[in-house]
């Protein structure tokens, strides 16, 4: 070990032993609270707590004893059980049985925190017993409140929301979408997207007219092609739109003329054979 380290350790030892320990000298405490009187030098032979009884106002414990010249030094712990002024020496006796009358007075004071006349903890404040009846009434009131709340949500909340949200504009019918496309194609103003939409709308028109909504799209188109009027129309539209070189010039104006004034009612299914035809197309 180096000299420097050895010197450091010695210095630390000296500092810790040279400094006097902070001793407590508590001569006053409340009832039931522990207190300490330390480094107390008392003459004569060694002392110990005198045996007490349940009514002893102070309880003393000897924590440590050291020799102090021809006397002894004590650390005492004491607890007062009744308010008043006491001499801790009265609660000690000699271990060797000798008289302890020569001991100096070690005065302590036990203070009280409760009022003087109060010997026991306060009685708990009387409180009313919980209500045992009226459950049905409470249930009824809760039910009425719930129903009123529901009605408010249903009618008042909805009315406010309806007032706040403007009704959406009506969706254009298939007829509304078909007419301008027919006009655009007849006027040679339609691009490829418009021509494709026209074909889809004509298919939808005849699907509705022939009541083929429940059929698969692939089957429906074959059924439409077999229909004398719809099939002729569709084949010419296909020739115009899809064939690289149509066999003859397609008269679009004549072909689409019945669809220029088509209305939503015309999308209704055709009557069964034998019934009167109401459609225009």
């Amino acid at each position: 070990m180096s000299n420097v380290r050895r010197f450091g350790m010695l210095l630390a030892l000296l500092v810790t032993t040279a400094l006097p320990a902070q001793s407590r000298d508590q001569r006053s405490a409340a009832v039931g609270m522990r207190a300490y009187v330390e480094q107390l030098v008392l003459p004569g032979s060694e002392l110990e707590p005198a045996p007490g009884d349940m009514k002893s106002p102070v309880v003393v414990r000897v924590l440590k004893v050291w020799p102090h010249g021809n006397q002894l030094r004590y650390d005492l712990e004491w607890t007062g059980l009744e308010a008043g002024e006491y001499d801790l020496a009265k609660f000690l006796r000699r271990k060797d049985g000798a008289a302890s009358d020569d001991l100096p007075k070690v005065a302590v004071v036990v203070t009280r925190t409760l009022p003087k006349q109060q010997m026991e903890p306060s009685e708990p404040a009387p409180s009313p017993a919980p209500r045992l009846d009226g459950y049905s009434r409470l249930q009824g009131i809760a039910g009425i409140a719930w129903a009123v709340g529901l009605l408010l949500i249903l009618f008042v909340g909805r009315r406010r929301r309806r007032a706040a949200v403007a009704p959406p504009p009506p969706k254009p019918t298939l007829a509304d979408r078909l007419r301008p496309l027919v006009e655009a194609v007849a006027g040679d103003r339609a691009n490829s997207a418009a021509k494709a939409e026209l074909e889809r709308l004509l298919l939808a028109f005849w699907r509705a007219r022939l009541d083929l909504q429940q059929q698969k799209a692939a089957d429906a188109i074959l059924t439409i092609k077999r229909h004398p009027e719809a099939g002729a129309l569709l084949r010419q539209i296909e020739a115009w739109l899809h064939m690289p070189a149509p066999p003859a010039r397609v008269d679009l104006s004549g072909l689409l003329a019945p669809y220029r004034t088509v209305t939503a009612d015309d999308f209704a299914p055709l009557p069964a054979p034998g019934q009167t035809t109401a459609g225009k197309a």
Partner: protein
Amino acid sequence: MTAPEATTKPRFAETREFLDQIRTRVGKVVVGQDVVVERVLIALLTSGHLLLQGVPGLAKTLLVAAVSKTVDLAFARIQFTIDLLPSDIVGSEILDQKTHEFRTHKGPIFTNLLLADEINRAAPKVQSALLEAMQERRVTIGNQNYALPAPFLVIATQNPVEQAGTFELPEAQLDRFMLLHRLEYLTTEQEIEVLRRNAALGVRRDGKGAVARTEFDVLGDQAVGSSDRLVQAMEDVQQVYVSEAFLQHVVEIVNRTRRHPQLELGCSPRAGISLVKASRARALIHGRDYVLPEDLFALAEDVILHRVRLSYEAVAEGHTSQQVLQEILSEAAR
């Protein structure tokens, strides 16, 4: 899109005759699967791949074998199982004991027509090995790349009812199949015809014994055309005219799948490409040199259904993909 050149027109009639011969020859062996035969031809003509979904016993294997023999294509079949390895399909390098050198052993994927039976029974790494080869049309064995023969077509099958111990193909891999066709049971008349033909098969002498003849024994070895003829037909498909209006229809339908509230996943652009390719092949099979909306509607289920996924809410409400697609097609027609 450009119109077909006038010089190709006469060949269209020849091609249609060739395709009709294939359908007739296959029809002699397989009863009542005209639509499936058409789908196989579409896949052949467009180099797309086909996934057949149906319960066992619907003559899927017989059908594919019949098509391969009719067009004189090399045919291989792999039964997918849980313990299949990628090298069982692709091939591997084997140490030759005599020369002490590695020799490449090519797997069954080196064929024209590959039947991947019950593809969903194999582990995902095997599925992805096959699907990678389908996409790139080449495989790697050791450090060497090998191109697959042309034409190369995978026809995979999966059973929709026995799902225990299977690995469902994820959407990204399903997208590699141009068509997913759902096989249905035969009609009563067709089923009676199957039984009648089967009863007339008889037995085949084999050495001193005999075995019962199957439909596979009926397959003739005489092909109606060579693979060169098939390549010509594939070229003719590319000459089929596609109008601007038809492209508008396709894009409209594909977009509707992406916007539909009951669909969580809509179609990819590949679906639109597949719709146009398949429609061109169908038009040629039906003797047209231009596509029509009826081609689109006829193929929509097979091209679109496996590429879309219903939302949880739609499934909970009991909707099916078929219903949603029909709604989309109806709306497309509105």
